């Protein structure tokens, strides 16, 4: 089992490869709509937020989506499956520019850019949400998991509704 020590001893290329794999798995999980698996990318005491750029820049605390624990993530999944009423859609996320910033104790700070595309019935695929991930990653149960994932999106404006996570 990989431990925090083994990750901290990794060379730059090896760590990059591990992160590439993490983000690719994360995007594939959401792109494939395996939402039930999504909370497993996070530790129990986590923070997941989707935030418009204007709030982020002005230090305004409001998030478009705020999850303060893994339970909040499960609740989002529950609502996607059971309570939200919405038109069918496909959302595909592409993650790029993954760059580790550095370790702080047992936490790895990492940033990446993302673009999400949305396809609705009768419409051509459109750019839906573009922004950056500001993440804090830890080793849990032998694998890399998110302790914190903040998605700051550029446009401020959401094309109608943001239902599936980014």
């Amino acid at each position: 089992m990989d431990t925090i020590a083994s990750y901290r001893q990794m060379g730059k290329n090896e760590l990059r490869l591990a992160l590439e794999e993490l983000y690719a798995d994360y995007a594939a999980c959401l792109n494939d709509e395996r939402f039930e698996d999504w909370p497993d990318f996070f530790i129990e005491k986590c923070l997941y937020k989707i935030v418009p750029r204007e709030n982020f820049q002005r230090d305004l605390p409001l998030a478009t989506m705020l999850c303060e624990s893994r339970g909040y993530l499960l609740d989002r999944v529950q609502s996607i499956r059971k309570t939200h009423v919405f038109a069918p859609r496909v959302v595909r996320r592409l993650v790029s520019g993954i760059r580790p910033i550095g370790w702080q104790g047992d936490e790895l700070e990492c940033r990446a850019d993302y673009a999400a595309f949305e396809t609705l019935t009768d419409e051509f695929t459109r750019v839906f949400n573009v922004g950056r991930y500001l993440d804090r990653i830890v080793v849990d149960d032998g694998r890399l998991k998110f302790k914190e994932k903040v998605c700051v999106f550029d446009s401020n404006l959401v094309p109608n509704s943001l239902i599936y996570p980014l």
Partner: protein
Amino acid sequence: MDTLEPKQNGAARAWPQEGITRIPYFVYSDPAIYAKEQERIFRGPYWSYVALEAEIPKPGDYKRTFIGDRSVLVMRGTDGAINVVENRCAHRGVQICQQHLGNAPEIMCPYHQWTYDLKGDLIGVPFRRGVKGNGGMPADFDLAQHGLRKLAVTRRNGVVFASFGQPEPFEDYLGPKLIPLFDRIFDGRELKVLGYSRQLTPANWKLMFENIKDSYHASLLHVFLLSFGLNRVDNPTRMVIDKTGRHASAMSWRGEQKHTEATADMKSLLVDLKLNDPTMLQPVKEYAEYTICVMTLWPNLIIQQQSNTLAMRQLVTRGPGQFELAWTFFGYATDDEEMVKRRLRQANLMGPSGYVSIDDSEMMALAQAGIAPAPEEAAVIELGGRGWEEEIQHGVSENLIRGLYDYYRQVMEL
């Protein structure tokens, strides 16, 4: 552009003879109707919401926003007064400001650097006297005649409204039924902005007003809302309309998560629904009366108090088939840390990702998709009767929508 002339469109542009129990679909898609709404409603003698004073506390602070599809600037002057002007240079029509919020000692158009003070008066024009005896403005060019277009402004307990026309005083504008409900939230306490959320909904702006005034859908569409008993047709409810029909407010008390006689028709009720992390929704009592109060103020504002989430939802029209909903979430300056957290957590109910409001924006988009290709058809609004009353004590009615269209028809002469 399309036209309203009967010779062009004939019966398709007449309001159905059934009156306010019908809403003809052309009012949601016709560009000529939209243009008339801009002129009569958004540039008419009505108070449009533009800002909270807490957004622009200091002299020179400004906010860029919209009334209908016109961009305006809301500015705090050096004297503390709030001035609202059109965001359009008097010279060549350039939109001067592109920042949502900022601070500046004066306003300068980037194109030819015409400069205005915080009241919108023109204070400087480059090369006014010419250069080396060449050019310049005519000798009688009067700066005072070329300021930014100024709007009438009114404020009440920290909320700022503006108008292209000259409406009656705000208290009379809202009327005696709505003023106490407005003052219930805005009681003079200092407000604190928690953040913004903006969504672009592919639907006509009126559908948003109707959605809020429509208590019929709440117990049927919103699985989350009704399963947790936050808002349901069998909860105690009060609905009021001002005497004109244009403003309204819906109030209710939270009920329990269980089946009652009224839930038989609520096919989507999930009594077993539980939150994995209940901290998201642990409201505390904040006001003496009602756990929910949602007001619709003509022509562009929804004031939402759902449990402990407070938000202004400003309607910005973007053509007949699209509107922006600009949410400003706020609390009070005196809120303690726990209350701020509570408001931020409960904000998950609202906005583009709201447990409740996702359903609404999705339905509005589907409504527009159905309506737009069928301008000759009409909606049927008969739940709870065929007229409207200023006050009812239940939500099993489309009363508020009929009130709105009674007024709309007068303003639009339709």
